[in-house]
């Protein structure tokens, strides 16, 4: 391959000092921002994505509602300063629409839409920095934002990109590597191992596909562990805060006990 940069050097290290199967630093921040029901900021290395989830709420547009399930609406905005070349994309850029449609179809089988009839779930993805793996970062952040919004999901969705350099598989590519190497992005539901998204925009040898596909699915499970840990930490923290509030108000607790007795009648 004739490339200006060395993807994998003789020592088996990549351009940013990682090994082949090493993931980038993965950071999650689940604190609430503004009006959103659920919020997550996720960074994979230098790629940083902020996702806000609003809803389920009554749709503004009556003609858009479906009487027995919720509608998912995904909007993506890429900050002009997010990449190395400053560039402003319009909201109706074909690539942006395609990206939003990919995220939407990833989550349609995962969100329990039948629980929210005639309502509307908005997912707003803001890309703050991009350095490869944009789709996987967006999907991971969306999963976390949906969970913090309290929307019922069948499972987590965790996504990772994987590529192949001659015969060496690589995980979690940076922008530099994405330019030179064929790669795919997969999103898996870790409990069942079901795959909700596979995208491949570059030409990849058919013999290599299975190997890196399986690798990406396994890496998804590792990402899932990290995500779950963050969610549990956050939930535990909130529950603890809630418990303190409850102990202060004995009356409130008594009320809930009453309710339970009545339910048995």
């Amino acid at each position, binding site marked *: 391959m004739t490339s200006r940069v060395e993807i994998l050097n003789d020592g088996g290290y990549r351009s940013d000092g990682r090994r082949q199967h090493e993931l980038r630093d993965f950071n999650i921040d689940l*604190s609430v921002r503004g009006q959103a029901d659920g919020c997550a900021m996720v960074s994979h290395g230098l790629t940083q994505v902020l996702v806000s989830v609003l809803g389920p709420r*009554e749709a503004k547009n009556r003609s858009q509602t479906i009487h027995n399930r919720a509608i998912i609406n995904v909007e993506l905005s890429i900050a002009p300063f997010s990449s190395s070349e400053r560039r402003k994309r319009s909201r109706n850029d074909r690539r942006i629409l395609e990206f939003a449609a990919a995220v939407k179809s990833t989550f349609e089988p995962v969100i329990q839409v039948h629980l929210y009839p005639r309502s509307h779930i908005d997912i707003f993805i803001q890309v703050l920095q991009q350095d490869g793996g944009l789709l996987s970062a967006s999907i991971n952040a969306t999963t976390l934002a949906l*969970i913090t919004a309290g929307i019922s999901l*069948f*499972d987590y969705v965790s996504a990772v990109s994987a590529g192949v350099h001659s015969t060496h598989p690589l995980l979690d590519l940076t922008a530099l590597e994405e330019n030179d190497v064929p790669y795919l992005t997969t999103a898996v539901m870790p*409990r069942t191992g079901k795959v909700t998204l596979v995208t491949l925009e570059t030409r990849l040898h058919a013999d290599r596909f299975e190997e890196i596909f399986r690798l990406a699915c396994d890496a998804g499970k590792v990402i899932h562990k990290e995500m779950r*840990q963050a969610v549990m930490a956050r939930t*535990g923290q909130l529950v603890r805060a809630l418990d303190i509030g409850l102990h202060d108000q004995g009356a409130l607790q008594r009320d809930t006990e009453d309710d339970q007795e*009545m*339910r048995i009648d």
Partner: protein
Amino acid sequence: MITITSFPTESKDSDTYERTRHHPDVLDDVLMDEFDEEDSLDTRLTSPGVPLTSSHAFMRGHGTYVDGDEVIASVAGTIERVNKLVTVRALRSRQVAARRWKVDANARQDAVLMLSSVNLPGGIQRRKLESDELQMRNFFEEGDLLVAEVQAFFADGAMSLHTRSLKYGKLRNGQLITVPPVLIRRLKSHFISLPCGVDLILGLNGYVWVSKHVTEREREGEEGFDAEAVYSSRNNDIDPATRTAIARVSNILRVLATYFVPITDTILADAYEWALEQDPECGVKDLLREENAEAMILAVTARAAE
């Protein structure tokens, strides 16, 4: 004072995800140790996709779903168990219009009918239970028509309705005609019974309900009053004569609406009388034809002028 930050500042209070990292092989062991050290809180927590229990021994509640023979959490939160019912209570969730119905009232916004402003079967003074909340669809369902009184307006202009009287409730045995709201004048009573055995409810929102006559006795709920019937969605048997009467009144209303004639009980009675006189050569459906409609409007306005 207004401060502007280009990005949300990261909160300091351990909200951000900070934890010692471990190698994946030992990670599970480390997590187990942590669970043991802390109180039972962490065992009460769950997140989507985590199997909770067997679906044979337990029933699934909110925040869970069944896949195969496992009950699996679908939200992140605390696990709660009441007898055999397992639920997961999410920390942040939105209830989509809980304890209320949304009613299309021909207004800018949908009106709201609270569960608390509805007459429940079994007496007005009954306490509202949580079970009533779950059974809301037994009272009113999507697509039901109902008559209610406007109780109050919210600050944003949405209406709050109530049906806490036997006059109000679910509509059946008839049909709905929509007319421009200006045509309905404010009357002493908007519940009219015409002499032809047809009841009318003239809504100020332009919705008119034409139905089979209900006797005074049945409506007041003394003897022979069926409490279940208030929320029943089944029509009673309607004999052909009443059906034609309802159809005729409906067509008269449609004609009056197209000619923009205000709808009052006297005008309706006059028009009905006129329609009966023309009956053999001008049947119910012929009322809608232009020449008949014009003749009716002329006759009615002439009589109103007298």
